[in-house]
């Protein structure tokens, strides 16, 4: 990704205190824009400018990652949309197990997940940008796959 010109930080449990703080400070100040991390940062960090959270892997728990972990999911997506700001979360699913895990999580919290299709980039871009650009006044805006006021399917 760095080859594509993104300033990326990777942060995981192997980093200790001071180093971790330094990396986090770079991210906080905007020196790095993309932070790749594991569950060590799922809760607690608070960077108000985060506008997108990607779940590259669906959070799992239990023996051999057999069960979905809704709580961690919630904490992860809670890294964006701080203090009434607008945020986007995109979860990557690729097989039956990950799809099932995500839909279990969505059901538990009653979330309407909006589907993005990797072969329809125009539509995907439009949707994400629409959310990012909408301002704080619309913080109560809940994107819905079933709301008739919005196009339900791409």
């Amino acid at each position, binding site marked *: 990704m760095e080859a594509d010109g993104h300033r990326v930080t990777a942060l995981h449990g192997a980093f200790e205190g001071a180093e971790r703080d330094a990396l986090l400070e770079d991210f906080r100040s905007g020196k790095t*824009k993309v932070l790749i991390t594991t569950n060590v940062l799922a809760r607690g960090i608070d960077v108000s400018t985060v506008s997108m*959270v990607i779940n590259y892997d669906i959070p799992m728990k239990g023996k051999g990652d057999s069960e979905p972990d809704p709580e961690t999911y919630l904490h992860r*997506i809670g890294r964006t949309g701080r203090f009434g700001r607008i945020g986007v979360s995109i979860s*990557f699913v690729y097989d039956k197990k990950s799809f099932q895990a995500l839909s279990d999580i969505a059901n538990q919290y009653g979330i309407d997940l909006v589907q993005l299709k990797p072969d329809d980039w125009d539509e*995907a871009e439009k949707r994400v940008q629409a959310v990012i650009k909408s301002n704080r006044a619309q913080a109560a805006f809940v994107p819905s796959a079933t709301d008739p006021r919005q196009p339900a399917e791409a």
Partner: protein
Amino acid sequence: MRYADKFAPKALKMTLAAGEQTVKGISQMYMDCPGEQDKYDILCKLYGLMTVGSSVIFVKVS
């Protein structure tokens, strides 16, 4: 929770109803990828297209 009961059985507990835990203002989407190997390509493409401020990518521990 069980620990809390043992530690302070008479303490007042405050929990959120399941339906109230979710957060408004966060647009939650999912990307249907054809396979695990495609995820990285899709991720790069996503970043190529979008101009986002800061973002966090969560991965599992390998």
